[in-house]
């Protein structure tokens, strides 16, 4: 068993984790529990504004993001599961730290002081912040994977001094016996909301990504973003696609929870044949 950390963390699931991607949500919760993080869902959290609010109204986007900062207790870190929500909340947070004008707006809007000590954590940062022993994790039995980061590690220039996590998934999963394969599409955007508006064009993009993974001999794609997971699964039309896992699904297994048939059945691209072949599920 990995070392236990025993740390209370507020948890912001976001709309796609909180609802449509519930199998990843469940595995994220079980992984965190396994390594000793006690996730406390942020009470009455609301949508971060998604890709839409900032597209049409800057003030609305700022208010939607900061509402969540205002209700988060500053006594514990805030974990944000979705990379897109993270970007929205962290960008607002950086504005609040650096710009008096925004700070005034915030304090007037929410009737409270801004807490500059509130820590906002990315899922990767949570893993990076604990010193647990990966060697003791369950093994992935030489599963060949490509890491798909999509646009999650891209940042606007005002966040350029944030940590960069390229290679992070490769490091973690290979320590547990996965075999990372290099490929060309690791940071190619999945199409985000254009999957709804321009399905044909996004299908073409997604197929290229899927084909890129198959061509280098990967057996599965690992992503840490629900939106990427969903777009790749629903928009891919090529024959015999390889399965896609959310990083938390593998971590949950590695840290001791079983892979269940019911959670795997929610995948659109069936991962069961691969998991059986690798002896990861019976």
């Amino acid at each position, binding site marked *: 068993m990995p070392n236990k950390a025993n740390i209370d963390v507020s948890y912001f699931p976001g709309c796609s984790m909180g609802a449509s991607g519930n199998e990843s949500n469940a595995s994220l919760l079980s992984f965190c529990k396994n390594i000793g993080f006690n996730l406390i869902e942020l009470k009455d959290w*609301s949508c971060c504004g998604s890709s*839409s609010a900032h*597209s049409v109204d800057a003030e*609305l986007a700022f208010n939607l993001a900061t509402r969540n900062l205002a209700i988060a207790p500053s006594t514990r870190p805030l974990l944000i599961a979705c990379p897109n929500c993270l970007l929205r909340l962290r960008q607002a947070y950086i504005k609040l730290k650096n710009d008096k004008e925004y700070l005034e707006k915030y304090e007037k809007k929410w009737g409270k002081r801004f807490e500059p000590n509130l820590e906002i954590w990315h899922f990767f940062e949570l893993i990076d912040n604990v010193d647990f022993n990966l060697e003791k994790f369950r093994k992935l039995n030489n599963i060949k994977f490509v890491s798909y980061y999509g646009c999650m590690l891209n940042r606007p220039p005002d966040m350029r001094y944030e940590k960069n996590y390229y290679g992070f998934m490769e490091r973690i999963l290979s320590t547990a016996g996965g075999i990372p394969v290099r490929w060309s599409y690791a940071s190619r955007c999945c199409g985000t909301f254009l999957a709804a508006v321009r399905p044909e064009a996004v299908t073409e993009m997604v197929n290229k990504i899927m084909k890129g993974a198959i061509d280098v001999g990967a057996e599965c794609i690992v992503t840490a973003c629900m939106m990427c997971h*969903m777009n790749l699964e629903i928009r891919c039309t090529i024959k015999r696609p390889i399965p896609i896992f959310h990083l938390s699904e593998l971590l949950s297994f590695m840290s001791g929870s079983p892979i269940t048939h019911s959670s795997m059945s*929610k995948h659109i691209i069936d991962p069961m044949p691969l998991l059986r072949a690798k002896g990861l599920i019976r």
Partner: protein
Amino acid sequence: MDNNQRKLLSGPVYIDTKPNHLFSAEVAQKSHVDFNLCYHCRCCGNGCPFVEMMDFPPNSIIRLVQLGLKKEALGSSTIWICAGCHTCSMQCPMAIDMAAIMDSLRQISLEEKAKIGEPDVLAFHKEVLNSIERYGRTSKLDIMLRYKIKTRNLFSDFNVGLKMITKRKLNLIPSIIKGIEKFKELFKGKRNW
């Protein structure tokens, strides 16, 4: 490549609208981006995953703004297709925040009721925001159904929808936040989209 792009990329450009000299200052002020740092190396467009769907590559939008060609910039499809993925800002040698420029241009085009280059994208954003206003969170099913009805396209994508419902990827019953009445005030007077 369409005619607009060809016009911009090859040879002298003959402009048929009058340049608006206040436009670039307006965009700079709204976006907080000093886009005159851009030296048009076109790294942004080379890396942009969506450039093929756009009528102008991203740096040409900066060029249009610099030239004061307001109508062209606001009416372009590029500003709506840009998904804000920040691939370009990671590659830009001058750290230009392209997504912020696109945000500002979309907002100005709505404020000024300009011709919308990609009405379907706007229709989608509207449904997302309506869903947020209604529940405080987004419901994918709600958004997709309403979007499909609005764009008179209910049966396109039917199979994908069905697949997702059976796999329970679409939440059928959205959860509503508790302070929804107070929350709705955030949307007051915000109907220019």
